[in-house]
């Protein structure tokens, strides 16, 4: 099963719909910022003078909610976290810049989003702050173009070398979900106790700090308890689901000769790149003899990607923008090419890597009764196993070809590999000799026989 979300990266959208969704997201965000009282600079900065922790509470409740929400949706396989945008971590710029940001936050009273809310709440200081932001960014642009071009700033602003990007590189996500949730809740509890004492000592000070009189505090306490209970349940639930997910997929260990067609973890049949070479090579001989090919290969990649990692004799798609367009284009191409006789022949789908788009397409085509397969590992694996001079091909490649004579003599394996590589990259047009294909071997003549072994699925070539 593949995730249904995030909608836009998976399925594409027209610009207008995308912008409207961005506006709706902003409206929700702005609404709750205002609900939290963040239109007022006085209340926002009260957290820095330790008078009112509203900002801290709201911020970290939001963070925990978003974190649990994302992980929960991922755990039930609704959301593909890998497709969410995550900007690069630049540790020093973000930390030191963040300190500067904090100073500006205290002095000016806002951060950019809350200043917008304060403007629509009628505050002049919010508007002046926004003018300041634009001026400050202008200042940065001027600085960046002048003194900022110096190497000391550039190496600080855009450090070379990868920093650690994500916390879950240190420990599994569920550890962080539970850890962060627990830490945040614990801090809320401490704050609550602290404020209760504070309230008993000097109620005047407390009244000065916020709009909420002490009388409503117990109610806030109840909400806190409910939140604690809810968040804990969710976090534990996610942890259970995550632990279940983390179990390693059992990979069947076979002999050194792979079965041409195997089934990958997504239950889509796959073919390994070496077998695909054999199929394509023998189809080249068939085409040269004016015989219909025994398999079809559909390449989903773009023109540049195809040029970078060539695969000979594939069907290609016109340039598309979104996944649904790609899907429709693929069906159109196949509709044009496949005759009734071709319906049972293997149809190999190639993408740059094992993408959801490709395995979805394979599943979809199989539902329609076609013998669709996925190239295991995509063009990346093809590059490593076929085109790369470093890859060592096994001996069985030039082994016996189940009783038929190859039109050209079969050389030793290293030479054969070189022949295939130079043919695939277009350096020569003379197709190399037949290759022995594990699992299935099909003869080039009309009297072709299929020797099928292993896990279902036909071979070709």
């Amino acid at each position, binding site marked *: 099963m593949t995730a249904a979300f995030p909608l836009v990266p998976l399925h594409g959208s027209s610009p207008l719909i995308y912008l409207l969704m961005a506006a709706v997201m902003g409206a929700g*965000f702005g609404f709750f910022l205002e609900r939290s009282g963040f239109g007022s600079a006085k209340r926002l900065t009260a957290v820095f003078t330790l008078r009112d922790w509203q900002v801290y509470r709201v911020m970290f409740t939001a963070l925990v909610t978003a974190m649990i929400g994302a992980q929960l949706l991922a755990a039930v396989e609704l959301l593909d976290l890998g497709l969410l945008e995550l900007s690069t971590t630049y540790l020093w710029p973000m930390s030191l810049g*963040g300190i500067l940001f904090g100073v*500006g936050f205290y002095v000016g009273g806002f951060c950019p989003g809350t*200043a917008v809310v304060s403007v629509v709440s009628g505050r002049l200081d919010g508007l002046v702050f926004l003018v300041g932001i634009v001026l400050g960014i202008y200042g940065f642009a001027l600085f960046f173009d002048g003194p900022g071009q110096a190497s000391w700033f550039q190496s600080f602003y855009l450090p070379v070398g990868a920093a650690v990007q994500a916390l879950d590189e240190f420990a599994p996500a569920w550890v962080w979900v539970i850890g962060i949730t627990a830490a945040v809740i614990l801090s809320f509890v401490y704050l609550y106790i602290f404020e209760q004492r504070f309230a008993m000592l000097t109620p005047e000070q407390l009244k000065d700090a916020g709009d909420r009189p002490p009388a409503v505090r117990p109610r806030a306490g109840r909400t806190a308890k409910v939140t604690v209970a809810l968040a804990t349940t969710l976090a534990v639930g996610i942890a259970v689901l995550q632990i279940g997910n983390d179990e390693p997929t059992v990979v069947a260990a076979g002999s050194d000769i792979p079965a041409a067609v195997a089934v990958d973890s997504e239950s889509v049949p796959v073919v390994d790149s070496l077998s695909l070479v054999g199929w394509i090579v023998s189809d080249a001989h068939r085409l040269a003899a004016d015989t219909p090919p025994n398999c079809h290969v559909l390449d989903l990649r773009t023109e540049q990607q195809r040029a970078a990692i060539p695969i000979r004799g594939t069907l290609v798609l016109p340039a598309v923008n979104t996944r649904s367009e790609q899907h429709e284009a693929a069906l159109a191409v196949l509709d044009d090419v496949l005759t009734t006789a071709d319906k049972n022949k293997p149809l190999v789908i190639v993408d740059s890597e094992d993408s959801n788009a490709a395995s979805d397409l394979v599943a979809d085509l199989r539902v329609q009764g076609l013998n669709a397969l996925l190239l295991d590992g995509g063009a990346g694996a093809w590059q490593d196993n076929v085109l790369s001079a470093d890859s060592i091909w096994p001996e069985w490649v030039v082994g016996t070809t189940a009783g038929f004579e190859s039109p050209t003599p079969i050389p030793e394996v290293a030479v054969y590999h070189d022949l295939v590589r130079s043919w695939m990259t277009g350096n020569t047009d003379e197709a190399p000799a037949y290759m022995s294909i594990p699992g299935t071997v099909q003869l080039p003549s009309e009297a072709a026989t299929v020797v099928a072994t292993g896990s279902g699925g036909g071979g070709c070539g």
Partner: protein
Amino acid sequence: MTTETHLVKHPVQQRVVHWFNAASFLFLWLTGIAIISNSGYQIGPRFYIDAVNALFGGATNLLHIHVYVGLAWFGVLVFSFLLDPHGLSLRFLKDLVPTRNDLLWFKTKPKAELVDPSIALPDQGAYNAGQKAFGVAVLVGSVVIGTTGLLMWIGTGGGALGRSLVLIHLITVGVVISFFFVHFAMAALIKEERPALVSMLKGEIDTEYVEHHHAEWYRAHSVDGEPVRSAERFALPRAVFRAIKGLVLKAHRAKPQKLGSPYLTGIGLGLSIVFGYMLLGHGPGSSGFFSRLGAYSVAEVAPDHVASNAYWGPVLGQGLWDYWLTWTVGGIALGGFISALRAGRIKFGIDRGSLISRPTRLVLALLGGVIVGFSTRITRGCTSHHLSEAALFSVGSWAFLAAVFIGGFGAAFLFKKVWR
């Protein structure tokens, strides 16, 4: 032309819009049927589809004509309605508001029609209840048809969304057209309704007919009918403006509501971020908008200066209005405004600490803005952006959040006076 026995019912502007609407809608309906040749949806007979396609020179031409006439139809209606240059939209909307008598009409009309013609019907306004129902259906239907058509024209990237738009478009047209047939039959075929048809042609209506069929309206307009008064021009936009102004002033004077629980509003913020994850693939932000706003604003004055700048130059070509952050910041403003309005928290003024004057506060706000603006470029985003990425375990965003509190606490320690 007004005589003692006639009243002005439909001013000329209303009649023009009525017939323009009728003609465009019929044309769009007839061409629309011919566009749908997909076997699953096909409505018209094959020979009709072929004939219309041939008439307009092929399917592509036909679609273009349908789209451009549709855009003209929707554009003219929306602009004339919203701008309300003759003060008719507001009146039309008021005439469509259902009353108690309308309910009664729906109860007694079938009886009067089928059982006993002598049963007295309740007094009606400018439109009777049946006409009101038709009016509402056409109004809502036109908005739906026009909006879905507009979205299809802009393009939605195919898929489920595109298909459901087509379906909504078709179903709404079906509903409106079936209402239209009733409307047409009443006006063209039923003799008693003839004065109504004439009034839509000539604008005037027979006094006796009005007295009987639209008694409430007659009582209100028995002297001079209802010519458009110049004072009513642009009535709808003015009414909307007055209503918003009234709400804002009311919120300004109101006692602000107590703040919600920080935990509940925090959950609300978090869910807004999750909404972004699910649909857009990222959470909200805002500082990027101000960078682009600045670049485009300064470029208005000095285009070469901005274009040659190493930081702002590349920003210029990327567009301001089709930038998602522009819309998100617009959304933040709208959402904040709605909340502030509801909670009575719109307060015109300046928030400041008790030890500093208003001018000092404004200078500090500007200074703080400059510092924040400058630093957002180094940190690659502001609090909202880093909040939504910290929830996805970005190390840099956690560093940012921690640093903001460190900087804020430090500044508060050094400059206590600012917010005392």
